[in-house]
């Protein structure tokens, strides 16, 4: 590498880092509790505990829970039923109508049922549910600075800058470490030298993790446009024949629809049901989301359409490759796929990243344009080139 090249890469590293550091610090700090958002939500939920049942107890028929939901809020429309598989819980969501839900997504009743006994664990009013969860606030900050889609795209850009900062940092790392053993931190020297060494150490060791989490963060920020693309291409084509048709007065059995979906895709597990009438679905189909059984495929969702007029299977929908990429990006970003030790590791690596960012800021705020070792590093580069390039004076 020539001196000019080193300076150019150093310039890239400095400026990509500087532009993204403030936002990245916010992202890393909000990300820390978000690793445990499921646990935090459960702890603050206030729902009744599950009934203790013998292993192998079958789950209650979904039709029974839907009937109970309709009885509790007569006249309301059932929108979704979520079938959790890692906990014995079914969540049924109702609203005055689909139109009311689209107008205000918070105007819903949400009932949590014990999946084994059918008991109501928690039922919330629209008024009650108006309280926003602390994890939702953190997620909004983390993902879009409370600015919805523009915020998502902006932070996606910041994520790209982060990736550029990491790559340029790796390029610059080489010349700086030519004369130092790996992981040396010269804390007996000045504070600046110590923090430069720390910055290099804390940056290079978890490099692959920062790259993965940063890149998957960028992909996640694209989820709205990616789903939008799917909507206006495949989904529109699929739903076109159904548009404008009326929602049937009598819906076929939801439980039977799930059974049909199971029979159609035995390797998949139904995870939620969207009832007919959704503006994003079909006026007269149940849209059943299914997922795979293995660690990876449990992140890959495939929708199955069952006709609600006669209970027959209508279609098993294939998801496009770009949505599969998005789905795989989720576990790799959240760190929630390897038990709680993985979550702890995720938090520790997040803290290391915060230290890299902070030490980078500290180094930048120093008086000099270039770090203290730069002249030695540049002299090094001149010495190492056998073919004798122009030797400039080392900058001060």
């Amino acid at each position: 590498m020539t001196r000019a090249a080193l300076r150019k890469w150093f310039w890239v590293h400095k400026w990509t880092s500087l532009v993204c550091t403030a936002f990245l610090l916010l992202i890393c700090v909000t990300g820390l509790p978000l690793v445990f958002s499921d646990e935090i939500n459960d702890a603050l939920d206030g729902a009744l505990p599950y009934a203790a049942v013998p292993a192998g107890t079958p789950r209650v028929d979904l039709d029974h829970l839907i009937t109970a939901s309709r009885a509790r809020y007569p006249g309301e429309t059932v929108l979704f039923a979520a079938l959790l598989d890692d906990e014995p819980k079914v969540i049924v969501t109702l609203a005055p109508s689909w139109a009311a839900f689209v107008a205000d997504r918070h105007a819903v009743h949400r009932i949590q049922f014990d999946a084994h006994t059918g008991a109501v664990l928690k039922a919330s009013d629209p008024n009650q549910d108006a309280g926003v969860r602390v994890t939702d606030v953190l997620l909004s900050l983390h993902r879009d600075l409370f600015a919805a889609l523009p915020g998502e795209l902006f932070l996606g850009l910041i994520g790209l800058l982060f990736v550029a900062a990491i790559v340029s940092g790796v390029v610059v790392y080489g010349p700086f470490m030519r004369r130092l053993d790996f992981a040396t931190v010269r804390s007996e020297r000045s504070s600046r030298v110590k923090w430069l060494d720390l910055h290099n150490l804390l940056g290079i060791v978890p490099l692959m993790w920062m790259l993965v989490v940063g890149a998957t963060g960028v992909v996640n920020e694209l989820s709205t446009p990616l789903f939008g693309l799917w909507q206006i291409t495949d989904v529109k084509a699929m739903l076109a024949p159904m548009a404008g048709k009326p929602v049937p007065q009598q819906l076929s059995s939801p439980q039977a629809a799930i059974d049909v979906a199971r029979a159609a895709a035995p390797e998949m597990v139904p995870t939620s049901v969207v009832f007919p009438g959704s503006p994003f679905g079909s006026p007269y189909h149940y849209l059943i989301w299914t997922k795979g059984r293995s660690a990876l495929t449990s992140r890959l969702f495939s929708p199955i359409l069952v006709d609600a007029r006669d209970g027959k299977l209508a279609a098993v929908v294939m998801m496009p490759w770009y949505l599969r990429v998005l789905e795989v990006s989720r576990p790799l970003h959240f760190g929630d796929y390897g038990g709680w030790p993985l979550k702890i590791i995720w938090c520790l690596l997040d803290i290391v990243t915060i230290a890299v960012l902070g030490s980078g800021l500290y180094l930048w705020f120093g008086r000099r344009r270039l770090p203290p070792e730069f002249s030695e590093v540049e002299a090094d580069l001149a010495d190492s080139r056998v073919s004798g390039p122009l030797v400039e004076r080392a900058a001060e």
Partner: protein
Amino acid sequence: MSGRADLRVWRWPVALSVLIAVGLAAALLGEGGAWWGLSWAALAVPLATIAVALARSRRRARSGRSNAGAARPS
């Protein structure tokens, strides 16, 4: 000549990056406890590396002089 220096500089970073990649993939692609254990072990190595480096750095600060792994004289 510079090839050997490059090897020395990049040996540990590359090894750690491979370990992290293996650790991230193991829990995602593998089924069952053994794969999770492999994942945690692989991902713990970079954290342990940092801990050891910080401990050594503290020793250097206390003793006030360079250790065996210090900058080479030019």
